[in-house]
């Protein structure tokens, strides 16, 4: 086989600039390697060859999410994700999914604040079908009124399911709305209901033209594939799609929160729920790693401080959870507690506050720190168990941080984290007077009797 250099030289000979392949380097990914390529039109291609099973996963990550929307047009990135499964110039409505299913593929997509991604997981020998279909809908999507109308209904139903009729979903939406006054993280990715219902095909077309371009996308392929064959297939499919001028982001950083914001809401639920959040670091911030360890000390597993205290010992809560948002810009450190029986969010908050104070005042013991790190390491390994899981990790970290192997750098960071790092970030972020609290209370006359028995 020709050396990569010789092969590349031959492959690029006489082809237009937009179709040239550039090898940008090989990056260690645990014991494996991610090969980084770029096509002349700006499309980033990341390949990881994994022969452990005869399957492949093909992901297309776009650097567009709900952060790129504006008030009155919230939910457009997500609605658009739905529309991408409809009609293209060469594929009548319904054909996209049928072709994939017929070839044994699973396909889906997701949208969040910073990104949108689409994937196909399919038998490895069918991967070129995914290449062809993804290139087709990146450039030749057809947006007509009937599909937009029907898909708005589907999304409205998705919103009812995930938010309006879901206590946790609606509390979470309220939390971000209250915590972010200026930054787009304040509106929900699924969009406000009135915005969803107001979209026109023109809104969708403008969004498509602006953000769905090869130079705003990363293709990730993981699996039992041949690198050179796949690269040539990608070039054939994508080279004719022109790069676009991606507009510079027009986002105002969230001003520092200096005060306590507190909201109570009533819902048809049996028990009270507490959602309490501090402003947290961005995913790329060096503090994100120790904050994640801190969250694990407090909330990770039955032996964590707050699970043990609130669920096991005092029996004030049914469930407690914590999460440091993995966003490109500073997000939140969310703390969730579901009250048990007639216990209240205020009782839960008191115990949480004591735990926050202890982290600010004392250092965490070595055994407790090791416990948290072991759980985080397990979590990472679980994400890498499957071929689609690896592709997702690569695509996510590339899109948010520009580093496809960042998951492993986080593990190294977890290992290096010390007890004094935890105390430092606790003092920096766990500021009681500058946080947001949402309390969900049962509707008057709610079914409390059972819970009280």
């Amino acid at each position: 086989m020709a050396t990569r250099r010789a092969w590349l030289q031959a492959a690029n000979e006489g082809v237009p600039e937009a179709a040239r392949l550039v090898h940008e380097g090989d990056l260690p990914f645990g014991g494996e390697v991610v090969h980084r390529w770029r096509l002349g039109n700006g499309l980033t291609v990341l390949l990881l060859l994994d022969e452990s099973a005869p399957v492949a996963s093909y992901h297309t990550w776009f650097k567009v999410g709900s952060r790129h929307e504006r008030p009155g047009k919230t939910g457009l990135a997500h609605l658009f994700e739905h529309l991408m499964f409809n009609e293209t110039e060469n594929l009548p409505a319904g054909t996209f999914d049928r072709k994939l299913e017929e070839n044994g593929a699973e396909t889906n997509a997701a949208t969040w604040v910073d990104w949108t991604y689409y994937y196909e997981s399919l038998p490895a020998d069918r991967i070129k079908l995914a290449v062809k279909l993804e290139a087709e809908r990146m450039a030749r999507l057809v947006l007509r009124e009937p599909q937009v109308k029907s898909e708005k209904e589907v999304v409205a139903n998705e919103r009812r399911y995930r938010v309006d009729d879901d206590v946790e979903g609606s509390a979470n939406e309220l939390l971000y709305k209250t915590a972010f006054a200026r930054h787009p993280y304040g509106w929900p990715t699924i969009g406000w209901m009135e915005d969803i219902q107001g979209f026109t095909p023109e809104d969708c077309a403008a969004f498509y033209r602006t953000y769905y371009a090869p130079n705003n996308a990363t293709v990730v392929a993981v699996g039992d594939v041949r690198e050179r064959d796949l690269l040539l297939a990608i070039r054939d499919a994508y080279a004719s799609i022109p790069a676009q001028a991606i507009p510079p982001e027009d986002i105002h950083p969230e001003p520092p929160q200096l005060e306590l914001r507190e909201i109570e809401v009533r819902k048809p639920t049996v028990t009270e729920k507490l959602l309490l959040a501090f402003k947290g670091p961005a995913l790329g911030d060096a503090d994100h790693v120790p904050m994640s360890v801190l969250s694990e000390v407090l909330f990770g597993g039955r032996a964590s401080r707050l699970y043990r205290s609130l669920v096991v010992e005092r029996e004030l809560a049914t469930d407690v959870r914590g999460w440091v948002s993995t966003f490109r810009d500073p997000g939140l450190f969310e703390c969730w507690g579901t009250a048990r029986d007639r216990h209240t969010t205020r009782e839960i908050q008191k115990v949480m506050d004591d735990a926050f104070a202890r982290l600010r005042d004392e250092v965490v013991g070595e055994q407790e720190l090791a416990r948290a790190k072991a759980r985080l390491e397990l979590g990472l390994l679980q994400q890498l168990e499957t071929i689609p899981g690896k592709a997702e990790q690569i695509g996510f970290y590339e899109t948010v941080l520009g580093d496809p192997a960042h998951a492993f750098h986080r593990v190294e960071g977890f290992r290096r984290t010390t007890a004094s790092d935890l105390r430092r970030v606790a003092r920096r972020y766990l500021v009681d007077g500058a946080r947001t609290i949402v309390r969900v209370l049962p509707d008057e006359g709610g079914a409390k009797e059972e819970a009280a028995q």
Partner: protein
Amino acid sequence: MSAARVRARTQPLRFELDGGALAMLEPSHAVPLVSIVVALRSGSAADPAAKSGLARIAMRMLRRGCEGLTAHEIDFRIDALGAEMAVDTSPSTVAIHAQVIARNLDAFVELLAKTLATPTFPQDELERLQRESVAEIVEGRDNDRVVAQKALQRTLFEGHPYGRNAGGTTDSIRAIGRDDVLAFHRRHVVQGNVVIGFAGDVTAERAPVLARRIIAELPRGEAARDDVPEPTLRPGRRLLVVDKPERTQTQILVATLGTSPHDEDHVPLVVANAVFGGTFTSRLMREVRSKRGWSYGASARTVIDRHRQAWVMWTFPAAEDAAPCLKLTVELMEAWVQGGVLPREVAFIQRYLIRSHAFDVDTAAKRLHQALDVELLALPADYYGGWVDAVRAVTPEAAGAAVRNRIHTGDLLAVVVGTASQVLEPLRAALPGLTEASVVPFDAE
């Protein structure tokens, strides 16, 4: 981590152990993780009727104290080893599912063996777990889909062990005593009733050694008998509205009896069901979501177990679309039963099922779970191994006949979670031939 070339095997390695226990291994060294399953050949169907949830409670009690270790010490040790441990309960089996970072496998197996063989079942921990379980049941009422599934199960299989909830009810959990837990452990956690599975970074040499360690201190004992009778279906068309206030959306489950894995027409029915509601482009999805936008999801599935289980169709439309959606989906079901499936539909779904089979076996854990299912659900030995050939052999005629023979549109149960004052009357009108309609509050169980 290295991506060693490991191709899917059709069968995992099997190790017959002393006392009738069985161990299986699906090795994969791609990631330094090991999945471990310790399953019993008995599940929630064996729970006493008034003490449903016993199997689950008893298995969850294993980590609430054992010789020399308190519940907290066990919890801390599991976490510190980079491990997770949970209990999964179904009518036919209750199992511990664990995962551990490979370097800590030996230490974790020691801990697992100890919790299985020497639990102390402290009274205060049992009472704590009972309170925890009751609170979880109460909390589950926030999730309309869970509410719908529970109502369906207890109504469709009323009076049958499959109608009991594996997690129990608030009353049945409170009725469980320490003696019940001890008796369960004595009877069921015995060598002859245990199946152990390993998937992941373990060698064929170590797996039987570790499996023997796990069961070493268990009494011998025998496999549990399956006393579950064949379920029967109440005749007629029934509607059950589970009343919950302020719902903007409904959860609709339409069910009847489905298939047994031992039926001759089992695979044809599964193929026909995939045409009807098994994929994104299925008839249900096309009519309900793509054409009308009524529900974010629309699907139909066949549940499998040791005995005939349910066939269930699921949609979740807005409250104002609930009645037309129920009407449409039942009409689609009738058309499916009467008209069968078209040759082109069967050909299409066969290509899907055969080609996507790669994803049924692409990880060691999935291959292990298939083998465990065969063992624990008493499936035909070649159920998964011969799956692709069986699917390939299905004809449109056989698929149509299977639907006609097995799916009864005249005997069905529709469960709808919604606000009764808003949806009950339109739903009654939407279901012709209704023989019974009732309303229960969402917190009835």
